[in-house]
């Protein structure tokens, strides 16, 4: 029994969360530093996972397995494949930046405001979310996954409902009501999804007799798994619904804009860049892995929905007046790409989708955090309140532009690679959908550039004339992300090498072959 690396990776932030929460109220800064250190430690562990993971090796590595609830065959089973590793790395990388970016977001408000903001709680919750996300990336036992998939909602609920932007147009009270509305909406949506999934999980147990991915896969391989086609489809739908809510797929997306709009920028990043990834990841691992037949059966509908998400999200992003909302709708569009790539059932598509999860995480983080810095300076989320920032804060504007360019997936930045892979992967199987999806890149350019033009260029507005440029802490947050964006855009090989084998496994799960190019087909 080797050292339980995966458990440690997930446990460290959990312990850190408790410790951070336990810091006495007076020692606010200490709590912050503690949280930061813990997240960095987690990053270190995640890197060891990355190193110990052997792309050429077995499908699930670093596995741990202990019996948990013997009566229901629930086991504490952990294991990572390439996709899991990539996402674990992403999470572990992003959290320190989130902590650093939210350094002052949870400070008690200036006197006169009645709202009490428990700083310790803020960072503790973030760490708690990290722990749960990590373990749900590691779990190979459906029930174990489900538990943390759901438990995640609780800290997220408090993060959204408890900590909003400092300044608000309609005053503190209105802000509070809107925040709680957003939080409740988030909770209800995901809860409904989760409950439906619970039914499916139980159904799965009834059919398969246990919850272990590997055992079920072996049973299927051995043909000893008797799952009626219709049963499989129903179960698939149960799972997929939950994941579609989590990774907002049209028309289940409306919780995301509210949540991201009302929560502080770091939390918004936490939502869209980390938590939502669990949904797409789970589609890849559970939907395709457990119900290949049903997945293939549902593909056409899902592809169309994803397509709608892409175009619809982009169009709505164009129409937004609120910076954060705009980013939220952009994310919806990107999630459309991810889901499309997953269900294109080609290795390019799925590698692209996985890559996309990572890249989207980084690019959204960059854009959203810079936007957060901008908002915290001006105290308004409305695009109309800005203008000419480029003149007074060139570095901020520059980083903002790079984040935006990443969002519109400019070649040379990371998202381009993944987006193009997804498009190609889809195109090879469904040309029409691929072509329509390509319109998304034009719309992406539209909303990004319009946002940049309205906020950063033009004559300097008096309100922003005194705006300070990025501070050191903020640069520390943004610069590494941008460096990462450029590096992965120029040299994504490290990630693809890890992802490819996993994708190969998934493809064999669904028994799909990539379509042959015409020329070779002709031969």
């Amino acid at each position, binding site marked *: 029994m080797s050292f339980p690396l995966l458990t440690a990776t997930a446990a460290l932030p959990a312990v850190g969360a408790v410790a951070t929460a336990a810091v006495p109220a007076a020692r606010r800064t200490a709590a912050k530093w503690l949280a930061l250190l813990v997240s960095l430690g987690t990053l270190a562990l995640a890197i060891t996972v990355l190193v110990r993971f052997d792309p050429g090796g077995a499908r699930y590595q670093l596995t741990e397995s202990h019996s948990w609830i013997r009566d229901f065959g629930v086991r504490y089973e952990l294991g990572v494949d390439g996709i899991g590793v990539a996402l674990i790395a992403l999470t572990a990388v992003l959290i320190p930046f989130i902590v650093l970016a939210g350094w002052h977001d949870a400070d008690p408000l200036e006197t006169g405001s009645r709202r009490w903001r428990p700083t310790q709680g803020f960072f503790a919750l973030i760490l708690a979310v990290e722990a749960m996300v990590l373990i749900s990336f590691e779990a190979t036992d459906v029930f174990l996954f489900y538990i943390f998939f759901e438990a995640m909602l609780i800290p997220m609920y408090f993060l959204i409902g408890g900590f909003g932007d400092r300044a608000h147009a309609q005053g503190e009270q209105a802000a509070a009501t809107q925040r709680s509305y957003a939080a409740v909406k988030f909770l209800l949506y995901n809860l409904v999804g989760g409950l439906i999934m619970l039914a499916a999980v139980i159904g799965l147990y009834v059919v398969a007799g246990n919850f272990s991915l590997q055992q079920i896969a072996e049973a299927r391989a051995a043909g000893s798994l008797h799952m009626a086609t219709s049963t499989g489809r129903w179960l698939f739908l149960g799972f997929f619904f939950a994941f579609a809510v989590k990774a907002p797929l049209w028309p289940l997306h409306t919780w995301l804009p509210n949540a991201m709009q009302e929560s502080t920028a770091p939390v918004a990043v936490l939502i869209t860049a980390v938590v939502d990834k669990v949904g797409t990841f789970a589609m890849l691992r559970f939907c395709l892995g457990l119900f290949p037949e049903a997945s293939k059966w549902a593909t056409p509908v899902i592809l169309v929905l994803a397509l709608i998400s892409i175009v619809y999200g982009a169009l709505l992003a164009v129409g937004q007046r609120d910076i954060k909302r705009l980013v939220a709708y952009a994310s919806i569009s990107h999630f459309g790409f991810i889901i499309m790539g997953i269900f294109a059932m080609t*290795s390019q598509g799925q590698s692209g989708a996985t890559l996309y999860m990572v890249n989207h995480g980084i690019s959204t983080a960059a854009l959203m955090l810079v936007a957060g810095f901008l908002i915290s300076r001006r105290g308004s989320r409305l695009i109309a309140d800005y203008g000419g920032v480029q003149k007074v804060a060139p570095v901020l504007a520059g980083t903002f532009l790079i984040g935006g360019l990443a969002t519109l997936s400019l070649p040379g930045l990371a998202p381009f690679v993944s987006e193009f892979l997804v498009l190609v992967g889809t195109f090879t199987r469904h040309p029409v959908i691929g072509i329509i999806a390509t319109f998304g890149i034009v719309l992406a350019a539209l909303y990004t550039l319009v946002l940049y033009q309205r906020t950063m260029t033009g004559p300097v507005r008096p309100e922003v004339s005194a705006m300070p440029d990025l501070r050191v802490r903020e640069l520390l947050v943004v610069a590494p992300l941008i460096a990462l964006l450029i590096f992965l855009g120029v040299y994504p090989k490290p990630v693809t090498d890890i992802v490819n084998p996993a994708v190969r496994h998934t493809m064999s799960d669904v028994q799909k072959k990539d379509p042959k190019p015409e020329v070779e087909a002709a031969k």
Partner: protein
Amino acid sequence: MEKLIALLIAAPLLGAAVLLLGGRRLDRVGHWIGTLLSTASFVFGLVLFTDLLGRNAEHRTLIQHLWTWIPVEGFQADVTFRLDQLSMTFVLLITGVGSLIHLYSVGYMEHDERRRRFFGYLNLFLAAMLLLVLADNYLLLYVGWEGVGLASYLLIGFWQHKPSAATAAKKAFLVNRVGDMGLSIAIMLMFTTFGSFAFGPVFGHVDGASQGKLTAIGLMLLLAACGKSAQVPLQSWLGDAMEGPTPVSALIHAATMVTAGVYLIVRSAAVFDAAPDAQLAVTVVGAVTLLFGAIVGCAKDDIKKALAGSTMSQIGYMVLAAGLGPIGYVFAIMHLVTHGFFKAGLFLGAGSVMHGMNDEVDMRRYGGLRKYMPVTFVTFGLGYLAIIGFPGLSGFFSKDKIIEAAFAKGGTEGWILGGAALVGAAITAFYMTRVMLMTFFGEERWKNQATRSPEAPSAEPAAEHRGETAEPHPHESPKVMTIPMIVLAVGSVFGGGFFSIGDRFLYWLEPVTGHSEGHSPVSAGEVTAATMVCLVIGVAVAWAQYGRKPVPAVAPRGSLLTRAARRDLLQDDFNHVVLVRGGEHLTRSLVYLDHTLVDGVVNGTAAGFGGLSGRLRRLQNGFARSYAVSMFGGAALLVAATLLMRAV
């Protein structure tokens, strides 16, 4: 020797990185760093060029594989550079003209406090453009393709505090994006057809692919070309792009970037040769654009916009030639190069004029400047002669060949295309003469009036900093600006001749593009004669209109065509009405629907449950007895249930 290829790109890239990240401490030397690095890249180019010349024609293709970019199951994209005669030509053009314009900008941007960043962007552009022409596969080319788009976005919007500039930049990027969409679809098609998008495999398996696929690929590539090279119907951005600083217009929107479309088509010769329908489309686009641009050019009073129109039309010539297939490829490139020289020269001249005229751009406020800025006048004049195809100058050789080739296409197409080209030549002569006359001849309309005219705000806000609204004092530009102009003028005078002597340009490019002599229904002599006639007519008309009688300082209302041409033949209005307005309404209604419909369904459900529970709450009236009733009723039901169970 292959190792050098990377350096070509590395040098300006380094420059961009240093200048953009360097911060203010580099403000004093930044421009020189930029110029130095671009020149370095030019030197590398020359070394490689000599190396290529040293080899014999078959071995003039150098391949440098750097690293594997995107390795995915069945999908392989490498970072590989390919230096052959075609890309060599472009490298020299880009780095050469680029360096000259760097030099020029040193003087031109002197008063701008963000000069360092300007040079950073210029270097970034050079790097991207070189990447574009050196890429060995379409995906890498796509990177360069969008890279130059980004650079042009940054440079057009360089004076970001001007809303017009910011808008123009955004417009340019968006229109280009539409083209890029074409390119990416083309790449996908290639991937599905050939399983690869590297030049080698694609061109190698063309014969194995179906006609339909090839045509589709061709059309998509054409769409991309239209976007980048401002061809109809995606030409609308070029005019606005003149919001950028003049050196940018010279380098990006005249000499190099806008010609990328031609490069793409010529590079994909193999595909187009196999897809005649696509070729036809290309020629049509070319022909239409060359007339379109020319007509627009005739009506503009803004000197830069007039030149932009002419750029459009000249690129139309190139595209037309490229569409003609092996007959035209070489001449397309040749015209591209010569055009690079004289159009850059013309723009620099225009810039120099504006420099001397407090950044006034309205030609109606020029006139009689030849006395005040002789060097500019001479260089501009030479460029003028070159572009209208005055015998012996470079434009003559390249354009004449294109018109010949157009006729040589044969059949009615040949006649139509050739005719269009001829008419184009005439109009070119007209509007260039017009520019020439309005700028350097006639009485000095800028006297006794402030040049800041409200209805035609200047493109260059530098003047606003200097706050000059007084009467301008035209003066010759500094050496650092004139030298590049002179060099370019020399190029535009002798370039064509140099290339054409013994068809050495033809032999140089033939191995890449292939060449075939079309048998033209009209002999070369006749074509040349016709061209001359058109030329004379054009000049004469222009002289009659602007040379003899004085030019009104305020533009007359003009004919319907004129007014339409002033508005870019209403293309912008069309876009605005159809795309912008329509888009706005679409998004607005969608936002509304998202709130009412998609969100409303959910909130409606919630509200429904709320109301239901509100009703059920009535039952809880707090009276113990009514609770007792329900208990009793429940008991009764239980009894009934048990009895039923017993019964069945």
